[in-house]
């Protein structure tokens, strides 16, 4: 962002403890004046991107976590094409097992159902909707996938099933069609 230059300087009020912390940071980088202006320019830039600085920093944490856990970025067209071909050439069962196992891995990685659900919402950019909620004794998962094929919907269902297996849920019913995944789970009875 090009720094805004102005001969007119204005005074702004801010919380004292924050100004003190910012002064400490600024001391290592230059002047307090330059640093505060840099921060506020980034806040305006964030606003122009449709987010707050808090949201942007939160998002970075989620993406970093995703990369650490082995998520990578791939062109969607390539991915869908590859999935479709693998589904028909390598076999539905092999692919389903692969996605189920992968779901289990992420279930273990995120450890907690809410964290897993939040990660799916933030990371699976091709989901226009993802809802995981309790309905009586059941856990209901509803997903709408953009530009998807049946194979992708089926495999996403297996991925979620694998993850929920780790959290102690077993599938009760499923309704999968092109672009739509509706799953119902219930607590597994141990023993």
């Amino acid at each position, binding site marked *: 962002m090009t720094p805004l230059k102005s001969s007119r300087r204005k005074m702004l009020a801010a919380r004292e403890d924050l100004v003190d912390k910012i002064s400490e940071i600024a001391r290592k980088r230059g002047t307090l004046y330059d640093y*505060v202006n840099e921060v*506020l320019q980034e806040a305006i830039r964030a606003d122009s991107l449709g987010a707050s600085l808090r949201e942007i920093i939160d998002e970075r944490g989620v993406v970093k976590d995703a990369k650490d856990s082995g998520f990578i970025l791939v062109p969607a067209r390539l991915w869908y094409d590859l999935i479709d071909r693998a589904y028909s050439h390598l076999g539905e069962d092999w692919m389903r097992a692969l996605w189920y196992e992968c779901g289990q891995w992420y279930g273990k990685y995120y450890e907690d159902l809410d964290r897993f659900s939040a990660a799916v919402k933030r990371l699976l950019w091709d989901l226009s909707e993802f809802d995981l909620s309790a309905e009586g004794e059941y856990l209901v998962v509803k997903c709408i996938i953009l530009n998807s094929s049946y194979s992708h919907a089926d495999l996403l269902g297996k991925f979620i099933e694998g993850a929920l297996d780790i959290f102690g849920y077993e599938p009760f019913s499923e309704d999968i069609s092109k672009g739509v995944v509706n799953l119902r789970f219930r607590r597994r009875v141990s023993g």
Partner: protein
Amino acid sequence: MGRRLQKETKLVRVYGDLVDKLNEASNREGISFLDYINSALEQAVRAHKMGRSLKDIVDFYEMMMMQREAGLVMVPSEVLNRITERFYPNEKNMLESMWYESGVWYGKYLLVKVKREDPTDVFGEMLKATGWNIKDVVLERRGEKLTFKCFSLMLSLENTALLMRFIEGVMETLGYEVISQNYLRGVIEIEFRKTTKVDLSSIINKKLGV
């Protein structure tokens, strides 16, 4: 309340031009001007604790938005690797052609989207942000020639070959013709020459089988 607030606040000097914009942004967020300023400073402290500048973090966010807009999706690398391992021995050409085509599409996106910077530089930065554990992307320019080097500690030999085809697709769309290329596991080196769009569309169409 006013007096108490006054005691707990300090005044800082800012560019005059910023104030109106900050005011608009705080209105959009539906919070008071003071809360908005405090929140921005809090996030600067938070970023500092993460060892990053706010600029780096906002740059990264903007790049991720661009990746999303470019039609990239987050996928589990394990699934991609396992499918590639199974497919590659018998379907090498099919896979390479898919990756090349994807690169051509991505290159076209960059041509449309990137206006102020050199699209090849933006591509290098975007490649680093893909999560492929790419340690470095080096673009060495000598006149009409450009050497593209990419280093990753994570890529398998198969994925290195596929990524090379992707890069080839992007760069040819951006106006560079391949002179020579070679790869090792995790290392790609391609030498390109700047060429005309007319020449390139015939090269690309031929490779795509159009």
